[in-house]
């Protein structure tokens, strides 16, 4: 009895070892390093100099605009993704012919095999003056500027993160018990109230998963606004890149990074709470 328990524990430890080691080396240790950096000082030539001060945290208001822009971009971008993704996921899970489903899913996933950076660079050329505006000029719509506009940034974000939103929603809709829909109809509900009361409600865990996934990634986003927005709007991601790679103020950058991580954790917890409550107190794991 005890022997088998021990064996079970050893087996568990062995199974968890690779992931634990990975997390310790690539997540916990770096996190400790930036926590230490964040209470340090910038060396005169840049970089880090040992100290114990909260001056970096006191200086956070200097990046208030960046925080604010990020806090707006992340939910708005995630919402835009949601509105585009839900109908697609709905069609895939409930309407698409069975034999097409796999192919359609593959088509959604395939772009992921190319780096987001490459795909965003492609959009830079598509939206640039020799791309879509040049085509539109043929049909008489002249001097249209698409690149470096808020619309271009939104398009880039929706395009880049769409699969992350579609897949969790698809999974939750796919598991939906069709008999519930029939029961709802039998009991006299209109298609709309069936959708709101049954389909949407039961897919909420997927929605929340997709929403928090996209939102958390957007909290650190800087490439898409830089490439498609012309770098005119400053996000936390941009602030971090500048502090680490340009002005080499590692302590201040570290303080911002720590703050960003804390904000992300809060977002995750809140999203998890909402999702648990909405789906009828069932515990839902986010991933």
């Amino acid at each position: 009895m005890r022997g088998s328990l021990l064996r079970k524990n050893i087996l568990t430890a062995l199974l968890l070892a690779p992931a634990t080691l990975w997390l310790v080396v690539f997540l916990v240790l770096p996190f400790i390093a930036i926590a230490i950096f964040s209470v340090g000082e910038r060396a005169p030539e840049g970089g880090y100099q040992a100290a114990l001060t909260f001056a970096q945290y006191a200086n956070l208001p200097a990046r208030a605009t960046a925080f604010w822009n990020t806090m707006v971009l992340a939910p708005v971008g995630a919402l835009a993704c949601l509105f585009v993704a839900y109908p697609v996921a709905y069609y895939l899970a409930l309407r698409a012919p069975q034999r097409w489903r796999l192919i359609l899913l593959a088509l959604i996933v395939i772009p992921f095999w190319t780096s987001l950076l490459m795909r965003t660079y492609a959009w830079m050329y598509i939206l640039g003056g020799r791309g879509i505006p040049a085509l539109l000029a043929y049909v008489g719509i002249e001097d249209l500027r698409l690149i470096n506009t808020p619309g271009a940034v939104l398009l880039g974000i929706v395009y880049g993160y769409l699969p992350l939103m579609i897949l969790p929603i698809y999974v939750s809709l796919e598991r939906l018990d069709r008999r519930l829909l029939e029961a709802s109809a039998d009991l006299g509900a209109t298609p709309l109230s069936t959708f709101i009361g049954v389909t949407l409600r039961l897919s909420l865990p997927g929605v929340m998963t997709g929403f928090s996934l996209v939102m958390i990634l957007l909290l650190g986003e800087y490439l898409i606004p830089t490439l498609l927005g012309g770098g005119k709007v400053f996000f936390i991601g941009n602030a971090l890149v500048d502090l680490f790679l340009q002005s080499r103020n590692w302590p201040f950058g570290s303080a911002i990074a720590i703050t960003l991580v804390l904000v992300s954790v809060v977002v995750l917890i809140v999203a998890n709470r909402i999702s648990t409550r909405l789906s009828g107190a069932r515990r839902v794991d986010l991933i």
Partner: protein
Amino acid sequence: MSKSYRDGLPISPEKFVDQLMRLKRGSIGRREFLGLTGLGVATAVMARELGIMPAPAFAAESLGDRMSIATWPNYHDPQTFENFKAETGVAVEVNVFGSNEEMLAKLQAGGSGWSLFVPTNYTISTYKKLGIIEALDMAKLGNFDGSQEDARFTAEGTIDGTIYAVPKNWGTTGFAVNTKKLAKPMSSWKEFWDTAMAEGDGRAMVHDYQLTTIGNALKYYGYSFNSLKQDELAKAEELLLKVKPHLFAVSSDYQPGMRAGDAWMTMCWTNDGAQLHRDIPEIAYVLGKEGGEIWTDFYAIPKDAPNKPAGYALLNYLMNPKVAVKEHLANGAPSTDARVNALLPKEVLDNPILYPAADLLKPLEFGAAATLTDPGRAELMARFKSA
């Protein structure tokens, strides 16, 4: 008939690396792109780890069989390294970087593995202060001839009479204008900034780099490019904040916008100016008559270079005017060496973008180390970008 695993392969390892490098040099392979991605480092590391770096035909005993150099994209004639390998047996691994700050970070962390690298003038004193580079052993650089160099360019590599770095090439920071869209002739930074808020509304670009963007805003008022004075910087900030809503972009990757016709005017470095003008003749390159930046990229050898003999050998090879002239033809930047200028074709020397008139060069300033590392300017830039 000998059988090798290479027979029948769709592509040889050398070919593959060639293709990869060509892709990297393609129209999006610029500093900004590499800076954003670290792709330059990634490809270099991959080439090494996958064992697809071509093995040398023979290994010279004292030089080893490989070395690595850290440099900028589109900055060398690839044939130079091939020829060096053929002569010495040393294969050169090229690491391309997006900014001086990244190079510095890598060297400061140690174990960069570079035996030669290409820092810009304003970083050399910092490298020396941090003990990252060593004084060059000039006895090993017989091909370098200080008397043939323009002293203005060698000065930045010499600290207290000791040579720490020798110049590779120089250049300027001016602005490029699409003269079809903005026909009014311009010759000053004042006109650049004023036009950006008027005829060029929504069409002007400034660098995503505090040194040049703040420096050229200071020039609007005739202040020094390197000013660290509070009141002067406050004036520059006022101008920058006023211009910000009118800009097309804040980005150092300005070629795509200029080529597509979305941007009409941009802050611009010599090489880019020459390339834009070569491909699109209506794009002119202007140096502000108030002054602005002049820069030199240097060669230096890190203290912890794993293969110093090869680093010196390659540096000496690159200092040979016959080799250097091909480098300049490939990367398009002007040379500091009179012996190289004597070998360059007339149309290159007569190109006013590469070799501007002396009276335009006179007011230009080298960026200073203090300017680059000043926390006040970094914060000013952050306020400008978040405005």
